[in-house]
């Protein structure tokens, strides 16, 4: 008994109680088959309204021009690119959880991977909007972004530009994430098909599940396909924010032209993404009563990942200052002093406080295992990570080599409403996912229960 208690202490259960296979199906499929709680309707009414605000703002921009944003000369990239990098970074936690933790056999990923992958897709959709509308003429953008024949000019992209690398990185990332997510969904869609009571649900889930029947021959190819997708998604997710950082690092702008950017951006992306998973998961776990499957063990592990990535990001901030001093480059030195003590000092210190100082509280187990504390922290981290991208982009551009061309960026109401609207789109897509698709992978949780039953006592 004592041994069991110690083992519980060291390895708290990933699934509480003994739901059995049928219990997993009943709980998870029951959510999408039953009525949504009142909170869901209230939430989607709010986020749907915000989405309409986004549509209105983007329509206004398309008919008027990007002058409706506060972008100016010298600050040609401002909130648009900040929002792009912010949203694409949010997505990274989903792929990290679904692919990298899968390869490392981290079993705690099992209850949260579907949820986090869906978050990735919603975030990539929001991210893609910003560069698209930053072109000003999104209906022409296909000729600029993709190598398709341009009948009017017959010219092609300059493939030396990191901006076109970015198009391929984000396009591949969104597509592969969707494939990975859908592949994981197929067995669960078959479960929903077999439980369907109405003709409509039978047809829809019958088509979506592609006739999956859980044959041993199917699972053999399926498991290898899943492993291979995890294997190729791992370098992919690392490459995406690396290439996003090349948008900056390949330029010669002081504060951007540094080799630290790829690892620094990837760590920051994972940091902000985990914060967003925690923000959403804490709410969903409460509203849909998923405490049996998403335990304190899951939440505490995510807090630990946030703490680790917070310190990587903090180390990068310090390294940037050190290199600015050690390089002897006066422009580089000026940029960093200007970041901390110039006109944007408030943005810089918001970033450092939220990203480096506050997460130190996660050293305390009391904070790591307190739902209100981790929720508050996850929101602060996302504020901090948004400011990180703002600081990097706007401080460097607003004061570069020539003092005569210095400027200052102020957002317009359209900037602010567009950012708010993108949160509306993100949350609306996510609420629809929660309504219509199983947010926990039933097949994977059952597989984990079977492994526990076959090897009692071993809970890595």
């Amino acid at each position, binding site marked *: 008994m004592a041994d069991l208690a110690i083992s519980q202490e060291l390895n708290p259960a990933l699934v509480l109680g003994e739901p059995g*296979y049928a219990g997993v199906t009943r709980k998870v499929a029951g959510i999408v088959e039953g009525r949504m709680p009142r909170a869901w309707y209230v939430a989607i009414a709010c986020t749907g309204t915000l989405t309409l605000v986004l549509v209105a703002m983007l329509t206004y921009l398309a008919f008027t021009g990007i002058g409706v944003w506060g972008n100016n000369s010298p600050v040609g990239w401002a909130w648009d690119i900040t929002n792009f990098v912010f949203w694409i970074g949010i997505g990274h936690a989903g792929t990290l959880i679904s692919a990298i933790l899968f390869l490392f056999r981290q079993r705690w990923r099992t209850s949260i991977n579907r949820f986090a992958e869906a978050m990735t897709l919603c975030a990539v959709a929001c991210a893609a909007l910003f560069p698209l509308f930053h072109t000003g003429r999104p209906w022409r953008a296909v000729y600029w972004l993709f190598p398709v024949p341009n009948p009017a000019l017959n010219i092609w992209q300059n*493939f030396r530009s990191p901006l076109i*690398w970015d198009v391929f990185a984000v396009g591949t990332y969104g597509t*592969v994430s969707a494939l990975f997510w859908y592949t994981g969904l197929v067995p669960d869609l078959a479960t929903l098909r077999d439980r369907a009571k109405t003709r409509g649900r039978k047809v829809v889930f019958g088509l979506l599940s592609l006739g999956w*029947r*859980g044959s041993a021959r*199917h699972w053999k*190819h399926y498991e290898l396909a899943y492993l*291979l997708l995890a294997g190729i998604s791992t370098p992919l997710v690392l*490459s995406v924010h690396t290439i996003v950082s090349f948008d900056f690092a390949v330029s010669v702008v002081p504060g951007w032209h540094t080799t630290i950017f790829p690892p620094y951006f990837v760590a920051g992306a994972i940091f902000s993404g985990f914060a967003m998973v925690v923000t959403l998961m804490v709410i969903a776990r409460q509203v849909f009563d998923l405490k049996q499957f998403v335990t304190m063990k899951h939440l505490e592990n995510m807090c630990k990942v946030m703490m680790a990535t917070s310190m990587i990001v903090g180390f990068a901030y310090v390294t940037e200052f050190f290199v600015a001093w050690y390089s002897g480059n006066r422009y580089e030195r000026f940029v960093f002093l200007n970041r901390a003590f110039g006109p944007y000092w408030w943005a810089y210190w918001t970033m450092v406080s939220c990203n480096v100082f506050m997460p130190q509280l996660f050293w305390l187990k009391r904070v790591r295992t307190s739902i209100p504390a981790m929720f508050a922290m996850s929101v602060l981290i996302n504020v901090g990570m948004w400011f990180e991208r703002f600081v990097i982009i706007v401080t460097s551009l607003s004061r570069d080599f020539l003092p005569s061309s210095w400027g200052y960026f102020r957002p317009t109401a359209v900037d602010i409403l567009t950012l708010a609207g993108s949160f509306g789109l993100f949350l609306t897509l996510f609420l629809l996912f929660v309504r219509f698709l199983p947010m926990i992978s039933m097949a994977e949780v059952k597989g984990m229960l079977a492994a526990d039953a076959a090897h009692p006592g071993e809970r890595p």
Partner: protein
Amino acid sequence: MSQAAVAAQKVAVYGAVAEFASPESLLAAIRGARERGYSRLDAFTPFPVHGIDEALGASRSPLGWIVLAAALVGVAAALLMIWWTGVVGYPLVVAGKPLFAFEFAIPITFEVAVLFAAFGAVIGMLLFNGLPRLYHPVFQHSRFERATDDRFLLVIEADSGGLDAAGAAGVLRALGGDHVEVIAE
């Protein structure tokens, strides 16, 4: 199709199907059926059962080769695209550099290779599995819906020589299977 008509071999038989309550009893039944000389076996389970490929004597999935081939096609396609657009389609000297060099092509080549490999993995998996296939005889089993929930089905399939359906059903019952049914093609 009535069970009686199927049992009397008036119609082509797909196989005899039995239900088991746990992965362990399923694996034991697979071994038992193989010892009795049945080789055309398949199982329907709500999650991948560990050790089932060994029990069934299944070969390793060749999907990895498909994915490798797809990735190499992606590499070739990306390099060809970047080379052709830069050298043939619209040769433009940027900063005095050569029209094509592999270094600046690396990021896009990698991304396109990953994209093709992912499609190779998913499409290859579906082709090997014969999916999408919206109808399959096993769906006639009265409790098939439990196979995507909490039960484990084992089928002894008919081969070209047909199947002694009554005999196979008897074997499945002897191995501990419930709800044994003979199913028409």
